[in-house]
Structure formats: structure tokens, C-alpha cells
């Protein structure tokens, strides 16, 4: 008798586990469907030309998305200028140069940075960084794209460091040994052998870091000054801007459910969802390809 009960239980549990396994697909699909459901009516309510205009002023039915897209791009590219050199540099330092004890301290320490809530960084940006930038650059307000870019750089650094460091670490020992045996210095080995071998992983790291930056909400909402003005030149980095994410967070609380403004905010959400989908699809295809190659090398 216990044998039969057991097989019955076993089948049930296996089914539950399998369903849970597939749940991730379900969630991605449901998220997409609900964003579409609430966001697509935009296309019927707002002419396409208006969406691609440069004025965002929902109270008077101006729904130009360009200032918001421009704001997001400006802040994200600015953050890349901070995060790429420092993130990749630190990853190389940790993986190739640092002595063991330094590595053991650095890795968890940078993980702490990843754990600091974005609202705490936003608060610190408001009270500590923005006022200093205002004095330093002699500008009317420190709440600018620059403050956002600096903080977002800090937020994407942990992602870049950990993914890039993994990539460098997984370059087979023998590659380095071969280069060193041929008389290359450690420095030459890093630049000519290890880094090129880990190239795809490092690029993935940068993409994931930037993906993190473009989706960040609270920090940019608190420090970028919230002015939906289309950035037309690089000088806009020291003026207030408004990102896509901050617009949703700041305005969603005040709109009537089902209004045009509500639909447009969801439409912005669809845009963000698709951006993250593309970034992650590319990143995951790189990861899968790498895993395949690693298996080939091992076998």
C-alpha cells in the first residue's frame, strides 16, 4: 500500500515542480500582456506624430516622448562614461592583479554597493552631491543629468564588476601560462590574451550594467530635477532633465485610470520593457554561446 501512495504523491509533486519551473515563462508573458492591454490604446488616442514631438505637457494633452527618451539616453550614456572604465578596470584589478586577500575584501564590499537601496542613494544625491555640484560648477541647481549620471554610474558598477570578473576568471589558466611562457609580461598577457578572450563576457557585463541604469527609477527621479526638456546638446548634462522611468513614477499616482495620460504612461512602460528584453536577450545569447564554447574546450 505505501508503494502505491508513494507513486501517486510522486506524480503530484513532480507535476507541481514542473509547473513552477514553467512559471517564469508565464510571468514574462503576463507582464507583457498587461502592459500591452493598458498601453496600446495610446496608439488609437494619440497621433504618432505627437508622440514623437518634443513637448511633454500632459495637462494640455502634449504627449511628446522625445524629451523623456532623450533624458534617459543622456543619463545612461553619462553613467556609462563613469561605470565602464571604473567597472571594467576594477574587474581586471580583482581578477588579474589583486593579491588574494584584497580580492576577498573587494568582492563582498562591491556587493554591498549593489545592496544599497536606490532611494538611499537618491537621498544622498539630493543632500550631499547635488549641492556640491551646484557650487563646483556654478550652476543654478545641482539637480541635473550630471548628478543622475554619477549616481547611476555607481549603481551599475557592481553589475559590471561581477559579470566582467566572472568572464575574466573563466578564461582558462593555460591561455595565461602560454603567454607568460612566451615571454610576455603579466600586463601584456592581460591586454593581449585574457581581455580579448573574455571580450564577449565583458561586453555582456557592460550591457547588463547599462540596462540596469536605464531602468533605474528612484535615484534619477530624486536627483535629476524632473524637467521634461529635450536635451539638444552635451551641455544639457548640467541642466535638469526627466527620464522615462521617473515620469511613470512621478505621474502615475495622479492620473485617472483609463485616461489617455494613463495609457501613455503604460506605453512608456512597454518601451522600457522592450529595451530590457532586447538587452537581456542579447546578453543571454552571449552567455549561452560562451557556455557551449566552454563545454567544447573541456571535452
Amino acid at each position: 500500500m505505501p508503494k502505491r501512495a508513494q507513486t501517486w504523491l510522486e506524480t503530484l509533486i513532480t507535476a507541481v515542480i514542473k509547473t513552477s519551473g514553467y512559471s517564469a515563462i508565464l510571468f514574462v508573458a503576463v507582464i507583457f500582456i498587461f502592459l500591452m492591454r493598458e498601453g496600446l490604446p495610446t496608439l488609437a488616442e494619440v497621433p504618432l506624430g505627437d508622440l514623437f514631438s518634443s513637448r511633454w505637457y500632459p495637462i494640455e494633452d502634449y504627449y511628446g516622448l522625445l524629451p523623456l527618451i532623450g533624458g534617459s539616453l543622456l543619463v545612461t550614456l553619462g553613467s556609462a562614461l563613469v561605470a565602464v572604465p571604473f567597472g571594467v578596470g576594477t574587474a581586471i584589478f580583482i581578477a588579474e592583479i589583486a593579491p588574494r586577500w584584497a580580492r576577498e575584501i573587494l568582492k563582498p564590499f562591491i556587493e554591498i554597493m549593489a545592496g544599497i537601496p536606490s532611494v538611499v542613494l537618491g537621498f544622498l544625491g539630493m543632500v550631499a552631491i547635488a549641492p556640491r555640484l551646484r557650487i563646483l560648477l556654478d550652476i543654478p541647481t545641482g539637480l541635473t543629468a550630471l548628478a543622475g549620471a554619477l549616481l547611476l554610474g555607481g549603481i551599475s558598477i557592481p553589475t559590471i564588476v561581477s559579470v566582467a570578473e566572472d568572464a575574466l576568471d573563466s578564461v582558462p589558466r593555460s591561455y595565461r601560462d602560454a603567454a607568460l611562457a612566451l615571454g610576455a609580461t603579466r600586463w601584456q598577457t592581460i591586454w593581449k590574451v585574457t581581455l580579448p578572450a573574455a571580450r564577449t563576457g565583458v561586453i555582456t557585463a557592460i550591457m547588463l550594467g547599462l540596462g540596469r541604469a536605464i531602468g533605474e527609477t528612484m535615484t534619477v527621479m530624486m536627483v535629476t530635477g524632473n524637467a521634461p526638456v529635450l536635451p539638444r546638446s552635451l551641455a544639457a548634462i548640467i541642466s535638469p532633465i526627466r527620464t522615462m522611468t521617473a515620469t511613470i513614477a512621478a505621474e502615475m499616482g495622479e492620473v485617472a485610470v483609463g485616461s489617455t495620460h494613463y495609457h501613455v504612461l503604460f506605453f512608456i512602460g512597454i518601451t522600457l520593457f522592450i529595451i530590457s528584453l532586447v538587452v537581456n536577450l542579447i546578453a543571454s545569447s552571449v552567455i549561452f554561446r560562451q557556455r557551449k564554447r566552454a563545454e567544447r574546450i573541456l571535452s
Partner: protein
Amino acid sequence: MNPAHPRPSNASRRNLIQTAGFGVLSLVALFTVVPILLILITIFAQGLPAISWEFLTAFPTDGMRAGGVFPAILGTVYLTFFTTLLAVPLGIAAAVYLSEYAPDNLWTRIIRIAIINLAGIPSIVYGLFGLGIFVIFFKFGTSILAASFTLAIMTLPTIISTAEEALRAVPQSFRVVSISLGATQWQTIRHIVLGQSLPGILTGVILGLERAAGETAPILLTGAAFYLPALPTSPMDATMALPYHLYVISTQVPGMPVQVQYGTAVVLLILVLSLNLLTTIIRSRARARRQW
């Protein structure tokens, strides 16, 4: 050092470049670490003096400019608790599927891609989704339940990937022995694999909760309240929460004393970092005790 080398000047030049290069990279790493240290020092130095028994246990008074943050702390505890309840069983089951059952085929690849994508969706988009499905479609309203469901889906990828890694680290021979002794696959998983990988799974769970406890954007639209005079009495009530409270008192309340802001920031940071510390402790203790 290198007597066989014909051009010693070249070698010394190369060594010079190496020394300079290593120096630059060390500086880069230093400039990455120092700001993090400064952030932590600033918040703790400014925030710790604001903390008192009253600050932790009292309601906010005077338009949130004085008093304590108790309702916000309790709200964050509630949200984290319900998120755990919803996300942990599902996350661990999904990890068990991927590690123990999933065949190496197209569907499994699609599941993995879906998990990677869930992890990458911006938190505010989770907020929109939660608003659309839980608050409006399922009519939960702005509530702890709606916010917890939203946070649970958001933390799922963290839990799944960390737990799967822990399950995979259990040596195959453990499973083979158990099966050969007549145990079924589920018995093997339950008694052998899950037990052995428990510390790793716990780490994943705590990392997920750390993220849930600190997030503002998803609860902004689904369950967080600006100010409530009473504590929530059921999961269908809205709640105050620490991250949202910090946002509110930093941006929405004029004449806010900076002491109270730093105090709130430090409470949130201690909560999150202590979860972080917990994972480190679990990991190092597990490593010391590991049987393989």
C-alpha cells in the same frame, strides 16, 4: 633576472609599462571603493545619532517632521513577510525543476531566458504591471497583498538562480547512491539534495528579500501610503514602508529636518545590510561544514 634576453632595455621598458599599468588599475579600483566607503560613513555618521528608542517605536508626528518611523518599519516587515510567503515556495520549486528534472531542450532554454528577462525588467515596470493586474484587474486595491505579489514576482529570478546554483553544487554521487538504495527521485531531492544545499538556498532567499525590502518603485503604485494614522489591520490595507517613507520625507515634505531623513536612511540601510551580512555568515559557515 633575464640574462638570455638580448635587449635588456626593451625588457625594462616593458616592466615600466607594467608597473604603470598596474598602478593605474589599482587607482581605478581605489576610486571605485572609496565612494562606497564615503556613502556608508556619511549615512552612518549622520544617521546613527538620530536613532533612539522613540524613533524606532513611535508614530511620525508634526507632519512627519518629528516622532518615529514605526509604521514604516512594520510595513516593510509585513511586505517582506508576505513576499517571502509567495515567492519562496515557488522559487525553490522552480529551482528544483531546473536543477533536477529539466531536460536539456528548447523549453528549458526558454525558461532560462525568461528568468534572465524577469531579472532585467526595470522595477518601475513591475510597479506598472502590479498596478494593472493586482490593483485594478484583480481588484486588490492599493494594498499589502498587491504590493507583495508584485515584489514576489520581482524577487523570483534572484531566488531561482541562486537556489539552482546551490542545488547543482550537490555532487551527483549523492543522488546516485540515494536512488540506488531504492529512494524515489522526490525522496532523494527531499532528504538528500535539499538538505545539502540548504545554506545556498537560504542565501538566495535572503538576497531576494534584501531586494524586496529596499525597493520603492514597485510599491509606489501598488501598496505604499504617504501617511497613515493607524497600522494596517489586514493584507488588504495599504501600508507605509521605509523606502517609500524616505522618498516622501526627502522630496514631498517642506522643512523636513535632515536629521530625521538621515535617521530613516540609516534604519533602512541597517535592515538591508544586516540581511547582506547574514548571507555572508551562512555562506562561510556552510563552507566550513560542507561534507564534500
